[in-house]
């Protein structure tokens, strides 16, 4: 069972993600540089956080044109679990794999703080171990984290159960407090907060167990006994 961690120029959460996958959850993870393709035998793909291409033009848009995205697209069509975290989420919306867009936070500040998420959809490969409405204490670290979609898209997200996480409070001006969404099939999930920074008790002063369920959900999905 192999998890691909895609690395773009400017990714900076790739090693944290790799560490969590391998050292904490004992998965076979591999880095893949963005200008190469992904092999066929990958079972899940993660686009980590960071500042790909220095956020030039706007966060995620240049990386969304990287050669690897064509393979990510193919894998999404095959139903392979794909998770985009923070800049990874921005890349997924800019490449059209997820609906909506991430705008500058209402405060215009880079926000680095703990938030509480509420699980709205526990049917995805990254949330199947949660109870509905379960709370996740988890940090955000972004300047462009305000999720926006027009009213029609918001209605269809709600109708198709594509809203995966909401913030419990108003954090950054996101439409309907949305913090994470999935595609219609549910296999592609994007979220602004950083689960890889929250799954170990040493670096999570609140409760590391809920964030761990994101990775335990992937293990369950992949049929891996940890």
């Amino acid at each position: 069972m192999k998890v691909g961690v895609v690395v773009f120029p400017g990714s900076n959460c790739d090693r944290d993600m790799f560490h969590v996958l391998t050292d904490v959850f004992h998965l076979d993870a591999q880095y893949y540089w963005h200008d190469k393709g992904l092999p066929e035998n990958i079972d899940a793909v993660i686009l980590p956080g960071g500042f790909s291409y220095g956020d030039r033009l706007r966060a995620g848009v240049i990386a969304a044109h990287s050669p690897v995205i064509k393979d990510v697209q193919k894998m999404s069509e095959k139903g392979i679990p794909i998770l985009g975290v923070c800049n990874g989420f921005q890349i997924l919306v800019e490449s059209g794999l997820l609906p909506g867009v991430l705008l500058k936070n209402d405060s215009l500040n880079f926000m680095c703080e703990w938030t509480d998420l509420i699980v709205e959809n526990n049917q995805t490969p990254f949330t199947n171990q949660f109870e509905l409405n379960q709370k996740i204490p988890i940090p955000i670290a972004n300047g462009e984290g305000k999720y926006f979609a027009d009213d029609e898209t918001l209605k269809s997200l709600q109708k198709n159960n594509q809203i995966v996480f909401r913030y419990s409070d108003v954090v950054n001006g996101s439409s309907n407090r949305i913090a994470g969404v999935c595609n219609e099939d549910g296999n592609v999930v994007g979220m602004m907060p950083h689960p890889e920074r929250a799954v170990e008790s040493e670096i999570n002063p609140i409760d590391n167990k809920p964030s761990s369920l994101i990775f335990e959900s992937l293990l369950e999905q992949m049929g891996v006994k940890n």
Partner: protein
Amino acid sequence: MATFNVQVTIENKPGISDPEGETILNDLVLRGKYDSVSKIKSAKMLRFTIEENSKESAQLKVQEICDDVRIFNPLVSKVTIDVFDA
């Protein structure tokens, strides 16, 4: 063929909030004596230098580029393209 400078202005569509423009208006311009100003919109500007046959073809080519590689995100932004002789 001639050289043209093409100015691409990317700004939020009407109805999409522009906290940067609002802050510049409320906390900088209106804080002083300039109360005749009613609105400021922030935008990003890119200037292309391009070889084309005419101003019209320069305009069309830059519009094509903007749409093709998503220079702007059509969900929330629009572009205005102005062509000048180089």
